[in-house]
């Protein structure tokens, strides 16, 4: 126990009873999140495995499938997410350097807005479009003549596309929910330069979700080049 360690006697906010020191609580939270992210990697890993197996079995069909997707939106969304990672990092940085709560919120809100932009583009211009074009598996998927015998496997590609981007979007929605809570906590003055673990830990999650997208984008959109 170092001299500078914060113990229960000091009783700062957000200090849980089962811990001896605030540092210990930080470390525990961070380790917990990393483990959870390991879980997430294996969760998506199942999908990446399936994708790899089927792409090597049906390369032609996956190529045809990737032509259905619009690189334009994929690219815009990639940029949007990278920006949101930056704003998230800045939010943590401002808490760490003891900025006023307005400054932290000033970074959290753009992060949420960027996340929402991503989802909006995805729903409105990609998925909805796929639905109208009958390229959504399970919802009147239409075998285009130009696909020939590959049509079922093109559908399989789209299956993986919806599965992966769908799960990713779900994670984004959860992330925005977390950011809302963080904003509320910040506005209540919960965070100081001593205690900002929730921000930092949620940041890990947010970056992780971004990284998943960084893998999805080339695998789904760019394989046709």
């Amino acid at each position: 126990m170092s001299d500078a360690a914060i113990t229960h006697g000091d009783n700062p906010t957000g200090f849980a009873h089962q811990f001896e020191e605030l540092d210990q609580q930080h470390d525990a939270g961070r380790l917990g999140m990393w483990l959870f992210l390991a879980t997430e990697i294996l969760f998506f890993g199942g999908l990446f495995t399936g994708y790899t197996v089927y792409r090597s079995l049906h390369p032609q069909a996956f190529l045809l499938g990737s032509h259905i997707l619009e690189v334009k939106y994929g690219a815009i969304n990639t940029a949007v997410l990278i920006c949101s990672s930056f704003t998230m990092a800045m939010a943590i940085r401002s808490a760490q350097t003891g900025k006023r709560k307005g400054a932290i919120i000033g970074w959290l809100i753009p992060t949420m807005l960027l996340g929402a932009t991503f989802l909006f583009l995805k729903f409105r211009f990609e998925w909805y479009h796929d639905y109208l074009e009958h390229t959504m598996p399970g919802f009147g998927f239409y075998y285009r003549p130009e696909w020939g015998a590959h049509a079922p496997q093109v559908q399989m590609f789209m299956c993986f596309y919806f599965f992966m981007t769908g799960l990713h979007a779900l994670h984004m929605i959860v992330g925005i929910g977390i950011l809302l809570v963080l904003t509320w906590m910040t506005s209540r003055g919960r965070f100081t330069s001593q205690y900002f673990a929730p921000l930092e830990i949620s940041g890990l999650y947010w970056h992780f979700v971004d990284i998943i997208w960084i893998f999805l984008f080339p695998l789904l959109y760019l394989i046709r080049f």
Partner: protein
Amino acid sequence: MSTTATVENLPNASAEPQVNYLNARYGVKSWLLTVDHKRIGLLYLCTITVMFVVGGIAATMMRINLLEPQGALVEPETYNKLFSTHGLVMVFFFLVPSIPVTLGNFLIPMMIGARDVAFPRLNLLSWYIFATGCLIMLYVVCTGGVDTGWTFYTPFSTTYSTTDVVLAALSIFVAGFSSILTGVNFIVTIHKMRAPGMTWFRLPLFIWSMYASAIIFVLGTPVIAITLLLLGVERLLHVGIFDPALGGDPLLFQHLFWFYSHPAVYIMILPSMGVISELIAAFSRKRIFGYSFVAFSSLAIAIISFLVWGHHMFVSGESIYAGLVFSVLSFLVAIPSAVKVFNWTATLYKGSISYEAPMLYALGFLGLFTIGGLTGLYLASLSTDVHLSGTYFVVAHFHYIMVGAAVMAFMGGIHFWWPKITGHLYPDLWARIAAAIIFIGFNLTFFPQFVLGYLGMPRRYAMYPAEFQALNVLSTAGASVLAVGYIIPFIYLIWSLKYGPVAGPNPFGAKGLEWTTQSPPPTENYLKIPIVTEEAYNYETAPEPEVVRV
């Protein structure tokens, strides 16, 4: 673990009736909203006991049906539902969670000298998630069941089965999240919550084994989750993921399924190995021989177990080279298991052994686990597996390990820590009788199945050729003995809650931090966080047992 810690952590004898985690607060709400790891452990204990009974009823009906070659009780369709229900409930809702969520929850913070797990609220949440999974499963069972077997093999599960596969898969999916959260919680707790002086190599071996199982929880469970999700989508939307007619590959399902489910069999056995280490040390009053070998073999098992899944697919059309590699790797995984068995045996050597009920379970474990593990090697050899795969030999193999070993250890652990958990002693004589009955009943039930399988009786059929009847009747008879063996502890354990003599802090004279505090422990486990000054199992300085016989 020094004597000073002991004294500091016990209120003086003349004090008022002890406040402990059980009587600190009363009422249903105090249980349903508790964040105390000990109470959550008990919530889990009740839940998995219910599931064990459900799975047990299904097994009983199967065994009755198999009394006669034509099927004595049910239609073949019903039989399919029975073995599926039995497998799903027992694997996912009893055995996978069993020791970790009950004893693990209760003991991990106590053994490492902490007030609670790292994330108490997450701990409660995982119980609620688990209970939701159980309810979905029970709903499926009550509304017609499912007939895919616990393995959900495609394309039967995705295309042909007419039962509620999606909901059944959902229940496993949900319960899986509870496993993941528990695993995360345990790993963080073991890393970050150890008391001063509790170094990694002073940890009880139970903690090492829980750590290894938690790794599998965290890395394995998400894969089964995504696999079941894919299965559900394929079934609901009729899109081709595993369906060969649409370009899919049913073998991919098997790969993904066993990538989780082989490690999952080690989730079931690793915790029980941890329990056995504690029991053997306590009742031979010796430090475990080769502590660090036993500790690292747990980690080795956790790692290698991720590399052997293909041994379930030797005859499913996997390539012969893959088969060879998986066969070799499967032999490798047996090595750390054998290391443990040898070390336990060496611990017994020249120990001052006493045969209390928990020790009887531990000794039973040693024998049954050895048989189960060795028969695993027959199955891991390519040529013998071609003959034995899909027969009752496989059924006997995994029951020797999952029931013979894992459930024995669970029972042994419950008996060992019952006085700590409840503060009361159970009648030791009855407990020993029950342990013996379970051991005999178990062998009567499952040994004939090795023979049946070797003779060629396939598993998962409601009927069989008449020449197999004698052995099947023997097996059913054994199952009745086994059932009696399980019912007796159920009765006296409940009896002991009210009438059992007061246990005192350390009735078995065992070493370990959990025995230095009162029984039942106070809500925060220790009045003062202990300072650890010695290795685990230092029985040279142990207090004499103060068992009160009932």
